[in-house]
């Protein structure tokens, strides 16, 4: 799961509500809404770099 830091608590509560309390999560800085395309691309690149190790890690 990818969420912005302003939504960390909501993301954790939602994951727990759906029975996935240990879901692998990457937190990115808030806000995303107001970023330009290049900034979004850079943020996505950093998020992917953090996400891949979590996806391939042993459960």
């Amino acid at each position, binding site marked *: 799961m990818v969420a912005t830091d302003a939504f960390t608590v*909501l993301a954790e509560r939602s994951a727990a509500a759906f029975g996935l309390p240990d879901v692998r999560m990457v937190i990115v800085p808030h806000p995303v809404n107001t970023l330009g395309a290049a900034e979004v691309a850079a943020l996505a690149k950093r998020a992917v770099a953090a996400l891949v190790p979590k996806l391939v890690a042993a459960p």
Partner: protein
Amino acid sequence: MRLAAERFVVDDTPEAVAELFYRKGWTDGLPIIPPTPERVARMLAGWRAAPGHVVGLVPPSFAEATLEKLAVNAVMAGCAPEHLPAVVAALEAMLEPRFNLNGIQCTTSSTTPLVLFNGPIRRALAIKCGANAFGPGARSNAVIGRALRLILLAVGGAMPGDVDKAALGQPGKFCFCFGENEEASPWEPFHVAQGLAAAESAVTVVGVTGSIEVRDSDSRSGEGVLKTVARSMTSASFVAASNIGDGGQALLVFTPEHARTIRASGFTRADAQAWLWQEARMALADFPPETAGVIAAWQRTIGLPADGVVCVTKRPEDILIVVAGGEGTKSAFIPTWGGVTQVVTRAISQTAAALCGRD
């Protein structure tokens, strides 16, 4: 009656009870009626279903909304037992997937469920439909609306700040509950327009973001009043956010004087919707360039003409019309959260409220 709720012992003072419930995060900040086992049992007397009967799962916690939990919150809000079926029915309407209660509970938008009653239940519970229908002073409007908010907080877990991420919120999040003034309306009741029988009691929920007064004391024709309404609807914020591609809706609450003026010019409800849909449009040139680009992209996606104009809704029927209030030429435009929520109208006889044995 066997109740499952955890019990707390607290000093027998209003202040101590209010403090305990506030600290637990179970209130809207206002004092509550203590939900003692005796009061909860009285609230549930006459129900054919057991206190553990599950009405639904309330997001975002997706905790079980048992009749007992709903009764506890109804007691806290000041409800009498006769109010509980209305609370249960309204909650059940909110739990229909197309209403998207999970989104409404968590979004940064100020959206909140508006609760509208139609049919005989309005008279049975003395739900205010006339003057100051949105305002204070009518117990049923206040306690039903408040009970629902307490349920959304305590059962749904929408704690403001952490989970309910509303940037500003709105006063309607405390309570937004009223009845249609069917007796003063020149049109069929709203629930009839939604396909139900006039004799049915019905509840409608709409995910709304506020209330904007539409004042027109000058127009003497229906077209005049509707033009003022149309111009009031075409705000850049609402049109930009209405997600026309998804069928975002708009709610208009006409006061009886405005409704009669419109009807006297020959407009049925459907005629008024069609007229408004033609008139309530904005030029893309009136938007900031980024927003205009987003709207134009939407229009291309759903096959609308690229004529530089955007409608306030995708279809005329997405402009919902209700009549309420008292004397005065002041109606209301009530924007919704856009295409991510849809109005839900339910016959109360078709909800869990029918499990109540009361007449």
